[in-house]
C-alpha cells in the first residue's frame, strides 16, 4: 500500500473508531512518519477529492461520509456518535461501517425531527425525501455549501 493510501486508511479508521477527525499528530504517530509528510499527503488526497481540509491544510473538515465538525446530521452506531456532512453521508456512515445505525436529522423547512433506523441491508421504510440544490457536476466546487 502506498503512503497516501496508508494515510487515508489511518484517517478513516480514526473516524470509525472515535467519531472524530484525527490530528496530523494522531496520523503521524500511527504511521511512524512526520507531521509534514502527513500534511503533504493530505494535500494530495484533497486533490483526489478524498478529503476536504480547513484553510490551514492540516485540519480535516470532511472525510466523506464523516464530518470533522458538528452538523445537524448525527449517526449513532454501536454506542458511538458520528457527524455526517449531509443526508447522503448520514446513510453513508452505516454503509461504510457495515453496521446498523440510527440516523438523527431534521426537516430543513419544518424542523420536524427524523429518526431513521438503518440495518445492514438498508433503512426502515420512510417517506422522507432528499433534495439537493446543487447539480452533481458542481458538488465539489463548494462542497460545504453543497
Amino acid at each position: 500500500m502506498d503512503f497516501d493510501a496508508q494515510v487515508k486508511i489511518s484517517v478513516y479508521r480514526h473516524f470509525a473508531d472515535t467519531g472524530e477527525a484525527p490530528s496530523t499528530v494522531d496520523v503521524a504517530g500511527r504511521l511512524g512518519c512526520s507531521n509534514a509528510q502527513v500534511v503533504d499527503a493530505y494535500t494530495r488526497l484533497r486533490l483526489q477529492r478524498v478529503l476536504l481540509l480547513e484553510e490551514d491544510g492540516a485540519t480535516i473538515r470532511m472525510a466523506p461520509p464523516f464530518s470533522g465538525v458538528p452538523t445537524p446530521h448525527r449517526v449513532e452506531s454501536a454506542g458511538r456518535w458520528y457527524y455526517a456532512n449531509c443526508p447522503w453521508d448520514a446513510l453513508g456512515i452505516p454503509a461504510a461501517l457495515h453496521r446498523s445505525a440510527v440516523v438523527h436529522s431534521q426537516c430543513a423547512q419544518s424542523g420536524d425531527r427524523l429518526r431513521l433506523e438503518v440495518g445492514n441491508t438498508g433503512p426502515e421504510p420512510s417517506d422522507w425525501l432528499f433534495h439537493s440544490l446543487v447539480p452533481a457536476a458542481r458538488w465539489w466546487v463548494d462542497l460545504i455549501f453543497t
Partner: protein
Amino acid sequence: MLFFRSEERVSEWCTDRGVRPRPLVSVSQLWQLAAAWYSSRLEANARRPGPDEIRAIFAGIGLADPFWDPQADSFAEPA
C-alpha cells in the same frame, strides 16, 4: 443537500429562497447511493467512482435527469 418531511416542505423551502425544486430522491434511493459510494470506503483499495460509473449508478436507481450527470456543466435553470 437536505432532508425534507414531504414534497410540500420542499416546495415551501424553494419558494422561500426563490429557487426551482430539483429532482427528489427517496430514502430508499438515497440508501442505494450511499451504499454504492461508501460501502468500500474503509478498505485500502477504495476509490471514488468515475464519471461513467456515477452515471450508471444514478441511472440504475432511476435518476437519469441531466441534474445528476457529473460532467453536465451545461445544466441550467429551465426558463
